[in-house]
């Protein structure tokens, strides 16, 4: 077993404690907002000091990161100390037993597709894969995207996706992978419950998935 795998196993083991795991899930689910100790404690139904202990253990394990913000928005004297807030730490962890390297295969394949200029073929294959996945009995689009790890959240009338499931590949081949991702999501929508009234478009923010969606019905 190599040291990298040991490190991943150590982080995963920190999530073995059920209270800690629920705190981690609460923080992740709140994204893009960061979560304070009070909020996390209330969501999980434990005391503030117990929440603080577990949240700091998650920071030590590298799973959460700390940020300081004044919750009230006030500044200057009398505004109080900035609150300690938690959010998911950057970085990716992958664990496969036994070891598998689908990522390196994806990189080689993406390189070939890119060199061959097969963007449109990739997009149509992704659209078909999306359509097959929901095929008329998918859940509603928000649930479908949440289950796929996109971490959807409403930003006024747009549904944005906090997490890019293809992040490192998309950074290396943005035109190719972001176009593929849009086609995949467009393929998913018609088979989702109530998905007919939805549209998806490339609409990147500085962070997160570059696709945003809109529903004829507006924010749900």
């Amino acid at each position: 077993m190599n040291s990298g795998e040991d490190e991943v196993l150590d982080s995963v083991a920190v999530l073995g404690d059920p209270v800690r795991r629920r705190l981690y899930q609460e923080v992740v689910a709140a994204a893009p907002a960061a979560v304070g100790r009070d909020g996390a404690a209330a969501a999980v139904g434990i005391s503030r000091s117990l929440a603080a202990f577990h949240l700091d253990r998650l920071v030590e394990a590298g799973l959460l990161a700390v940020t300081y913000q004044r919750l009230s928005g006030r500044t200057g004297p009398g505004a109080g100390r900035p609150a300690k807030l938690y959010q998911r730490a950057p970085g990716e962890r992958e664990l496969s037993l036994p070891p598998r390297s689908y990522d390196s295969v994806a990189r080689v394949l993406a390189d070939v597709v890119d060199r061959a200029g097969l963007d449109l073929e990739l997009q149509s294959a992704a659209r078909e894969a999306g359509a097959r996945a929901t095929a008329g009995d998918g859940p509603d689009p928000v649930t479908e995207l949440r289950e796929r790890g996109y971490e959807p959240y409403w930003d006024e009338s747009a549904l944005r996706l906090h997490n890019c499931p293809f992040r490192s590949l998309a950074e290396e081949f943005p035109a190719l992978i972001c176009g593929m991702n849009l086609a995949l999501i467009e393929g998913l929508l018609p088979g989702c419950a109530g998905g007919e009234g939805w549209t998806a478009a490339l609409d990147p923010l500085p962070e997160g998935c570059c696709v945003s969606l809109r529903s004829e019905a507006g924010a749900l």
Partner: protein
Amino acid sequence: MADTEFHLAQVNIGRILGPLDGPVLAGFVAQLPEINALADGAPGFVWRLVDDGGADSTSLRPDDHDDMLLINLSVWESVQALKDFTYRSDHLKVLSRRREWFERLAEHHQAMWWVPAGHLPTTAEAMQRIALLRRHGDGPEAFTFREPHPAPRTNLPTTTAV
């Protein structure tokens, strides 16, 4: 980091799949004004090459022997500024549809290099940088997003400036 003495020049060339006034390129041509306006207002944008029409560079042909080859040449304050515009703005919409309008060129079709702030690169200069990349691969004189090179360091105070 933005550099006050040097700016980043970037060129890309592309062979269109049909005439600019035909149906194949219609979608591309329709989006040009919006995307160019977006570039002009983007953080870190310095300059872009335009033809006599003044709106864009679509009437310029960097190769006299190739009527279908277009050029896009611009100057930015930093690699990050160009990257943010290219991949983190609505420009990505156009980029993801590139194969509907442009051929995939087998050889390098883009290049970046550092120019002294205020210098406006010419088409000939830009084509030389692409040729350099094709001949020698990445280097400080011509590179790509894959392996960006830092701006040259000159006129720094002697010893400990890092």
